[in-house]
């Protein structure tokens, strides 16, 4: 879902950069208050894991592929503001070094995949936990729902930016983006659930770190 340069108009580039710079600055400010000894290596490892996992495109229907975003995993393990920092670092490296996602579109890519995806995942997960309780099964249903929802909502944000920019009409790009990402989101849900299950089975204490 990395937007290249050329898809977005200048108004969208400027507004998404403004929101994303503010969001990342706020994430750093909050992390500065709450970040503890135990979360530091976890943040580095999650950034590394998410970068590597994003390289693994899996096929979905109709000659299309998708890959993990990872915001849901980061938000569930460490909280939404820590996830914003991790995801932004991954997206900045991908844009600057790997030419994946445009330089002008970086603000929009951070807005969609770092901010929207992290917060939607975190609150869907919290909602599911309050409805289903803290059992292992309830937790995993929450993880799946949060991961799927985060991909869908990020893709809708992306479609809105494309429509506002005039790249494609609303009635076309909105259902097309939501449709294909409803499928890709299943992959996000399965991968994130698998990783969380592994953490629960081996180091359940890591699930209980203070959320940032």
């Amino acid at each position, binding site marked *: 879902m990395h937007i290249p340069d050329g898809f977005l108009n200048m108004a969208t580039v400027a507004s998404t950069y403004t929101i994303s710079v503010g969001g990342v600055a706020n994430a750093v400010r909050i992390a500065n208050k709450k970040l503890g000894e135990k979360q530091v290596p976890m943040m580095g490892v999650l950034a590394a894991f998410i970068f590597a996992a994003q*390289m*693994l495109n899996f096929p979905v229907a109709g000659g299309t592929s998708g890959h993990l975003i990872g915001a849901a995993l980061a938000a569930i393990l460490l909280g939404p503001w820590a996830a914003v920092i991790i995801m932004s670092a991954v997206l900045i490296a991908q844009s600057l070094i*790997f*030419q994946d996602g445009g330089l002008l579109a970086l603000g929009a890519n951070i807005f969609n995949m770092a901010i929207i995806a992290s917060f939607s995942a975190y609150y869907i997960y919290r909602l599911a936990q309050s409805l289903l309780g803290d059992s292992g099964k309830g937790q995993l249903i929450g993880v799946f729902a949060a991961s799927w929802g985060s991909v869908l909502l990020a893709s809708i944000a992306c479609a809105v930016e494309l429509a506002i920019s005039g790249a494609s009409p609303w009635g076309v790009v909105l259902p097309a983006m939501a449709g294909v990402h409803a499928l890709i989101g299943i992959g996000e849900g399965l991968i994130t659930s698998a990783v969380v299950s592994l953490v629960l089975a081996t180091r359940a204490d890591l699930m209980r770190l203070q959320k940032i």
Partner: protein
Amino acid sequence: MSKKWWIIALVISLALATISPLASSAPDGLERVAEDNGFLSLALEAPFEIVADYVFPGIANEALATIIAGWLGTILLFIAVYGLAWLIKSRRRTTTV
């Protein structure tokens, strides 16, 4: 707290980067939508290329070039975000004590 878990997690991440040549090369969701709806041609070339498309330059074997690009990014992000998080945390200590 045992440090072992994050070393294992880092090794798993490097292993994922190692199998990255096996990833699907089909267009992703956004590329597919852009292609089907006629706006893929709006995409501009990057003004500069470093490790473009996750292929490390100057290596003839493309699978190997992809693996090396993957290792580079994985290690770089681990160091960068570990360092950044450490900096964010340690700055507080100096200001509050």
